[in-house]
């Protein structure tokens, strides 16, 4: 029995199976798909009422998936997102729009809190 358990085939394939199960359990329990961030103006102050667009990067194109409005503190939240590679862009009439910022996730539905705010430029 000990020989079978310590056999290199058992060890390698067993370790692979355990890793796959553990990873899938982690993904299943961390896939709320919550993406949160902030939008600031050229002066660095929070911008309320800006529109943030989320586009998923597919193999060939950028597909619009969702849009959100910033609150008084300039914060925005997307919930239930399934993209693993996406681009965010913020815009507000009279203030300007931000550069497109690309983000990558380790799996679909991973939650992300973006530390660097999207900066609107005239």
């Amino acid at each position, binding site marked *: 029995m000990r020989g079978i358990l310590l056999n290199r085939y058992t060890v390698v394939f067993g370790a692979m199976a355990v890793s796959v199960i553990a990873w899938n359990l982690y993904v299943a329990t961390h896939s709320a798909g919550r993406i949160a961030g902030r939008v600031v103006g050229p002066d660095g102050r929070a911008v309320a009422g800006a529109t943030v667009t989320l586009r998923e990067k597919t193999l060939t194109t950028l597909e619009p998936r969702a849009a959100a409005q910033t609150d008084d503190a300039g914060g925005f939240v997307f919930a239930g997102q399934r993209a693993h590679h996406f681009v965010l862009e913020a815009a507000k009439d009279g203030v300007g729009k931000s550069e497109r910022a690309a983000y990558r996730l*380790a799996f679909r539905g991973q939650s992300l809190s973006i530390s660097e705010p999207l900066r609107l430029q005239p």
Partner: protein
Amino acid sequence: MRRTPTWPIHLVLLVVSAAMVTPLYWVLKTSITGDNIFAYPPALFPRHVHLYYYVDVWYYIPFVRFLVNSTLVSLIVVVGNVVFNAMAGYALTLAFRGKRAVVLLLLSCMMIPFQATIIPAYLITKELRLLNTHLGLALPLCSTIVCIFVFKAAFDAVPRSLIDAARIDGLGDLRILARIMLPLSTAAVATNVILAFIWSWNNFLWPLIVVRNQEMQTLPLALSTFLSYLENTTGALYAFCIMVLIPGVLVFALAQKQFVEGLTSGATKG
């Protein structure tokens, strides 16, 4: 007596090994960095390492489907090779009229490339209604002549007295093969498994001809399709290459000792 220094041989082996490992290292490095392979001067060591290209491959294409297809086809090929080649190898260890002609015929068939027989192979597969099926993908590789001779060499090394004793005990040929020959030829079995697996896993031309839709594609075929999608996928493309390579490397690494034994058994006498 003065001992010949071994360091020159080790040095040469080191250089040769490095030359052989470098392409694989470069593929691995590109897959975790996405560096442009044409950049000059090239970066020898990876910077800004990440695994996102592997994530891209996983989600951009139905990778699991291709993996299942390749695994199923390889399993059929491995089982077919062990069963059919063992039977053929055992038959060639027996004495029968025309044996020399059969051996010569098999050896001469080894010189015909698969490309030359691809049209008859296609027509036979079509007549059997196996186009675009896993069995149809596996069929041409289910027995290979090289592996038949690997089994023959291993079976030739089994003492005749054992087989005679088994016959006296009333065992038929199939049971002699299953109960005596195969357990005593584990190295040959390992060689068959590894060769069949790697040939099937890397096979590109036959799936390209037989497969009709994306659901039936195997990994090498999917890799070529992926390559044709767009050019800005260097990192993902190399990540895909690594994901295709891993199972073959793993199987070889796990059974390399038996593989080498199987290939060299029968090569020396005594």
